[in-house]
């Protein structure tokens, strides 16, 4: 008797859970969505992701709750996101840090805990280049000045970054590689302290992102020498970009959304549509542009292609960096 009862309960539970799954696929979303952010709260990535969440709610019809799962430059959260249920209710904030982390692990001979293809990319909404910043009364009036000085004194100019192999270190490494210059690197914990070091003249230069650097530029605490990308920025049209100067060293910080790889296509389509609409939404644009960034929408497949491209560049530079680490 007990066995029959137990078996019936078991069947009932299975049936209920399966049917709930089916119901959910039909008119997704029917309950709140969790967005895992692998970066610590409060950073620029976090705020942009939260801006997306706040606006996408309108188009998805359900609340999007952002949960921070920081650790290991985004690896911890990414692993959690990759292993989540592929039902469209757990999304992950994808960014260039995916590529950063994976390639760094590979360059050091370790197997990365997750891979690019553990995710389906929904889309991305920013593609920000870094800015070359120097202290306000630095002797360099242009990027060429800096480069000339660097050539004359190899290994003497000091730069800071927000963290080893992170979003503000790699652009400089790529730049140094492309121009054959040598610098000294002082890592800090995060972009904020690094900017503070530039303002306080503790380092010679750094590559930081527009939202945090532009206000300081306007306040005459530092100067921007160039935009490390292929286009000038709308907000500072007078500042040359690397392409203008003939330097081929591109690196972009991009932020987007991803879902676990087995998420059913109709749900992915719905998410992609919502993301596209969000990227075009005026309120969202205001939230991104006010701090000084720009919205730049890429469809999920284009994101994947971009990752391939940047993956190659980053892998190369990471190999170089890994070799340079002291092995005494």
């Amino acid at each position, binding site marked *: 008797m007990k066995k029959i009862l137990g078996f019936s309960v078991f069947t009932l539970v299975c049936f209920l859970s399966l049917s709930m799954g089916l119901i959910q696929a039909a008119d997704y979303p029917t309950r709140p969505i*969790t967005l895992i952010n692998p970066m610590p709260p409060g950073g620029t990535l976090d705020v942009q992701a939260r801006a997306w969440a706040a606006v996408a709610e309108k188009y998805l019809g359900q609340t999007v709750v952002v949960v921070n799962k920081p650790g290991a430059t985004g690896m911890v959260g990414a692993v959690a996101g990759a292993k989540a249920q592929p039902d469209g209710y757990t999304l992950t904030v994808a960014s260039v840090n995916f590529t950063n982390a994976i390639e760094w692990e590979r360059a050091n001979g370790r197997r990365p805990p997750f891979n690019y293809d553990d995710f389906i990319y929904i889309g991305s909404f920013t593609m920000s280049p870094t800015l070359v910043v120097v202290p306000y009364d630095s002797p360099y009036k242009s990027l060429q000045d800096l480069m000339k000085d660097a050539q004359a004194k190899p290994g003497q100019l000091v730069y800071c970054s927000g963290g080893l192999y992170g979003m503000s270190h790699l652009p400089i490494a790529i730049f140094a590689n492309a121009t054959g210059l040598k610098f000294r690197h002082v890592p800090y914990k995060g972009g904020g302290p690094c900017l503070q070091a530039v303002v306080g003249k503790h380092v010679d230069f750094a590559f930081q992102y527009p939202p945090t650097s532009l206000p300081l530029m306007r306040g005459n605490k530092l100067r921007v020498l160039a935009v490390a990308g292929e286009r000038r920025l709308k907000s500072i049209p007078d500042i040359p970009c690397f392409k203008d100067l003939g330097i081929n060293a591109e690196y972009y910080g991009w932020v987007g959304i991803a879902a676990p790889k087995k998420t059913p296509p109709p749900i992915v389509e719905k998410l992609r549509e919502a993301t596209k609409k969000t990227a075009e939404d005026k309120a969202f644009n205001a939230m991104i542009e006010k701090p000084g960034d720009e919205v730049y929408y890429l469809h999920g497949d284009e994101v994947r292609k971009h990752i391939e491209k940047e993956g190659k560049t980053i892998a190369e530079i990471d190999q170089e960096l890994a070799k340079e*680490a*002291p092995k005494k």
Partner: protein
Amino acid sequence: MTKERGASIIFLIIGLYGLVLCRQLPLGDWRDPGPGFLPCGLSILLIASGVLWLIRGKKGGEGKKKEKIIWRDAGKKLLTPAKILAVTAVFVLLLERTGYLLTSFLYVFIVFFWISRFPLWIALGLALIIGLGSWYFFGGILGVPLPRWNLFNF
């Protein structure tokens, strides 16, 4: 086995462990410390502390009272803390699998029933109140992201 000796042995073991592992890291030197510099240095210091105290202990430390560890009492004393640890460990392992509500309810119930020795119904009732209450307070009001049981989504 005095308390000092016990602690010294622990320091020694940890120091040795640290030393063994840190040798694989590049050391650098005073002017350019590598990642292994600090851990190796500290491991050595720990080992030194451990050894020094063992020696000092043997010589009889200048009139300071050594406190012995009484093993017989230890067993009895450890029982409840061990139980608490065990149940909490189960909570930790289950948390992300069965969601906060269920896990906390089970946890509080087991603690009340098995450790605090409340009668069954009272334990159940209190566990329900505390489980639901904490779920609502932390998850609902404070917005802490508490895990959900994927099957039923609470």
